[in-house]
């Protein structure tokens, strides 16, 4: 099995968190009626949380492709640069209080489904599973003399493509600097002799519509909320890598569409708003409800609206915008 070389970075801002959710079940369907008529979000639930949930909520999702990725719910990633610091999921004592934006009349439906509040307390998934440098040569590229050389790198190339890239330019900030070159949909880690040490398949390159999902990338089971919010469908019909959600053909595993781009940012109730959310960005349909005011600011990320204390900039609540 190929080995993922995850760069170990050290900027851990905060621990990950689990979610507590006072209600479950789906709202009124994602689409044109996302916001209209919805009731005010309920209060953040102070009771549940505890990021210990790991797998207990997966029974209704079918068999997990691999147990380590059975968690669901938005992983509250410690930091983008913390990708290398272990892929373990359950981080106890972390919590995000979550309220769900749903119509009050739907609450009965949620109860009928029998989903208790514990089901949604953990909205994490294995973000780091499909991230990092893969040792060796990409499929189809033969090794030669202790290395391999992609055809495009074997010849003199024109223009900017001769540039050495930092992986962070492609979103892989955990890999640090080094000699990387791009060719034909992959980013290659080169040694001083110009041989390939490893590679990263890239969105828009190897990970493009029509291409086969690479076998070395394991399916990642997404949280129910993400499945619903982004209309991902059954577990065998989507894939995740590097903060991107893909739709795949369940039979062929061919990529059929790019479903969503995620920030991957971590929001923990009681902790500071991540950097880079200075501007009010709540989707239009929710602005009446989550309007900026002297007592609360609101920011959107990856399907959630986060309530923020204007004075302290601490996150007061995470609000699901389902659907």
């Amino acid at each position, binding site marked *: 099995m190929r080995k993922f070389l995850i760069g170990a970075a050290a900027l851990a801002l905060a621990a990950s968190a689990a979610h507590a959710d006072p209600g479950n079940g789906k709202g009124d369907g994602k689409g044109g009626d996302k916001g209209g008529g919805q009731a005010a979000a309920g209060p953040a639930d102070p009771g549940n949380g505890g990021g210990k949930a790991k797998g207990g909520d997966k029974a209704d999702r079918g068999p997990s492709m691999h147990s380590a990725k059975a968690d669901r719910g938005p992983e509250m990633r410690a930091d983008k640069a913390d990708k290398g610091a272990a892929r373990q999921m359950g981080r106890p004592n972390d919590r995000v209080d979550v309220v769900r934006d749903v119509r009050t009349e739907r609450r009965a439906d949620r109860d009928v489904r029998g989903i208790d509040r514990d089901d949604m307390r953990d909205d994490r998934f294995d973000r780091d599973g499909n991230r990092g440098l893969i040792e060796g040569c990409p499929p189809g590229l033969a090794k030669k003399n202790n290395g391999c050389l992609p055809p495009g790198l074997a010849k003199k190339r024109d223009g900017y493509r001769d540039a050495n890239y930092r992986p962070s330019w492609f979103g892989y900030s955990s890999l640090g600097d080094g000699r990387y070159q791009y060719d034909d949909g992959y980013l290659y880690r080169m040694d001083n002799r110009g041989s390939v040490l490893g590679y990263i398949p890239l969105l*828009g390159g190897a990970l493009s519509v029509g291409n086969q999902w690479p076998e070395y990338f394991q399916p990642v089971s997404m949280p129910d909320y993400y499945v619903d919010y982004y209309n991902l469908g059954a577990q065998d019909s989507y894939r995740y890598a590097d903060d991107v959600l893909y739709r795949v053909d369940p039979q062929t595993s061919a990529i059929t569409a*790019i479903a969503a781009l995620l920030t991957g940012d971590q929001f923990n109730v009681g902790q500071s708003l991540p950097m880079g959310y200075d501007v*009010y*960005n709540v989707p239009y349909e929710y602005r009446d409800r989550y309007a900026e005011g002297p007592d609360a600011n*609101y920011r959107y990320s990856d399907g959630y609206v986060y309530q923020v204390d204007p004075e302290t900039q601490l996150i007061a609540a995470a609000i699901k915008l389902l659907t």
Partner: protein
Amino acid sequence: MQKVTRFAAAALVALVPLGACSQGADAPPAAESDGARETLAAAIGGAPGLTTLSDALSGAGLADVFDGPGSYTVLAPDDDAFASLGEDGKALTDPANRAELVAILRGHILPGHLTPEAIKQAIADKKGPVKMRTLADSTVTFSADGDAISIAGESGARAKVDGEALVASNGVVLPINGLVKAAPKS
């Protein structure tokens, strides 16, 4: 799901200025009231001057993202911005370089709905430049430049908002006159 209709007629929606006291109390854009707003992909596809970007998004497979349920703001380099790149701009449209193009485009996508009014309000509240993260694990910095909004990428590349914001059902398009992320030079 709505199809990407590059050449579909797309109403260019003028934003109504936001209330000075509350960003959340902004009046809905004109097209919002009719309940028929198009998707981001359609808005970009129908916007004059964004042809290169629209083609790039479609070619890169990102158009589906902007037809989907996620909420995004697209800093949309206009055709002149791409043309000013010269040969590098042409190289970006080469399918062999598509992953690089996607990396650049991701640096122009922000989470949620940002309007010029909200950006200006944030700058005013902070009394200086404000930052927003992109979908490329980076940030852009907004600052006031007279009545205009200036945008700087992490590499120092700068652009200005040079057109009316287009409000779509799932996001906002802010036309800009340059790229705030570019490929490294060789």
